[in-house]
């Protein structure tokens, strides 16, 4: 039970980042590695504001705002011009990789390479299932659980019920048709990037509160998120969430049965299996991948 809970909670942060990746990937087909840079920046902004003003709501709002601005800037300055030039998938991927490297190195130059933590009195432990079960959760884990569930549920509700959600799904489904109906594709893409920034910040801050951060955690977290997207299915918005949870549980089981150092090996074996046996993922429609 304890292992399952730990797995689910770390899975939630993977799911948040996977959703961030998917929000960009589905409408634009951009393999957004720059996300890893955003993930790396967020806790540093939060920490700096926290130290200046000492109020955690301000620091959270500020880091969300900063990352959303950065994410939109990535689209505005890099991906939108490349799309106008009809650049290839590979060009988007490589330039996004370049942005990631640039951003992470800037963070490292500004704030240093060492590991930092954002602990703020969340070290107390709780037994949420006391009468039934003896599992222990820390305050930061509970906080993380609540925060990510609210965000993910809010996102799904937004997608299903609001007009904006419908337009996002339409853009993901067929961008050309979407443009033909007279909607402004660029604004919606910008919005998708901004939303990805929100989710990346949430994932980064929640993880930073739980286990700390350094400039280089972003890429690893993003790779896990991408694996979650592949597991869940790359043509759906629900898939990444399920994939993230599943991956979190699998990784926790690996820690329990083998050792923490084989976590990544297991993760990428799972990725390889999915790519070979079920490339459309759990929630995807069956299409030939060569066709896309």
């Amino acid at each position: 039970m304890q292992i399952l809970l730990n797995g689910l909670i770390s899975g939630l942060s993977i799911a948040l980042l996977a959703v961030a990746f998917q929000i960009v990937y589905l409408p634009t087909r951009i393999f957004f590695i720059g996300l890893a840079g955003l993930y790396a920046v967020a806790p540093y902004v939060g920490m700096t504001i926290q130290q200046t003003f000492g109020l955690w709501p301000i620091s959270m709002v500020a880091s969300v705002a900063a990352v959303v601005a950065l994410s939109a800037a990535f689209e505005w300055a890099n991906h939108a011009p490349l799309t106008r030039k009809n650049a290839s998938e590979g060009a988007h991927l490589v330039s996004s990789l370049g942005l990631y490297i640039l951003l992470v190195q800037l963070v490292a130059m500004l704030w240093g390479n060492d590991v930092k933590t954002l602990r703020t009195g969340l070290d107390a432990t709780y037994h949420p299932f006391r009468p039934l079960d003896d599992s222990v959760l820390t305050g930061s884990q509970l906080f993380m659980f609540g925060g990510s569930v609210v965000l993910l549920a809010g996102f799904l509700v937004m997608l299903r019920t609001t007009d904006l959600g419908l337009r996002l799904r339409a853009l993901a489904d067929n961008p050309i048709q979407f443009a033909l109906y007279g909607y402004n594709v660029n604004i919606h893409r910008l919005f998708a990037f901004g939303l990805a920034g929100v989710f990346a910040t949430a994932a980064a801050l929640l993880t930073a509160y739980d286990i700390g951060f350094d400039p280089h955690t972003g890429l690893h977290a993003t790779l896990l998120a991408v694996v979650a997207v592949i597991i869940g299915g790359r043509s759906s918005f629900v898939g990444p969430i399920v994939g993230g949870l599943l991956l979190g549980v699998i990784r926790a089981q690996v820690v329990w049965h083998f050792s923490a150092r084989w976590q990544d090996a297991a993760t990428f074996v799972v990725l390889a299996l999915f790519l070979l046996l079920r490339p459309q993922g759990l929630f995807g429609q069956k299409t030939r991948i060569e066709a896309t």
Partner: protein
Amino acid sequence: MNYLIHLLIYFDIYVIVALSLNLVVGYCGLLTLAHAGFYAIGGYSYALLALVWGWGFLPAVLAAVLLAAVLSLTVSLPAWRLKGDFFVLATLAVQALVFSLLYNWSNADAPLGSWSNLTNGPFGIPGIPRPEILGVALTDSRHFVLLATAVAALSAFVVRRLTASPWGRVLVAMREDELAARGLGKNTRLFKVQAIAIASCLTAVAGALYAAYVGYLDPSSASLDESILMLSMVIVGGLGNFRGPIIGALILIALPELLRFLDLPDALAANLRLAIYGLLLVLMMHFRPQGIGGEYRLR
């Protein structure tokens, strides 16, 4: 003088890496992130065979090359079916697995090279011997540079001949239109397997040279950062022809040396160098997607 020799040896090693990576990325059009994995496999095979079992340079390198060729199937088999982002992901999985194996196949109680402690994990392998060829031990860098340059020249010659041959033209045809190449009766799967195997072998040789020169090897040589560095080298230098990767390797060697003149603190200089790489990648994609001297634009 020693400084120049040191630079020349690094240049030799990276020329081999860049030329071989260009075979996969530039000629086959397959963006791979697994290249550093094969580089490290070459380095580790040589290090273990030479240090633990006392093999000579040539047989040890030959064994490393064979191992790399067999393991290259892990990249070329996915290339049969996957394309674009999915192929990149598959190579990423290979890369992560190689790194994970090198990093974790260790046990502090067992001697280095035994079954339970094959790679010594994060501590790496120290004291890798310099090669001995025809009874001459190349302990002096001035002698080692001759070997490195000779190997690099030989690799460059092989790559040059291969890409100028009908075999190389089939690769280009396959990159441009795989269906058409298959329609002309070319077994594109076999060509992919061959090209990736050759590239992996060459980079394994480069890895072995590096291990022999530096004398120490740790799993970071198989890290994703290393793969990204190799990739940015060929992308900045240029894809799809002979001169591009060589220009890329030159830039990779020259950039840190130029930054040395800025007199920055060490930690900052390393970060700045990588930041410039990132910026170069972005600018390249915008203004010259085929790289400085290249002919092929990434798809």
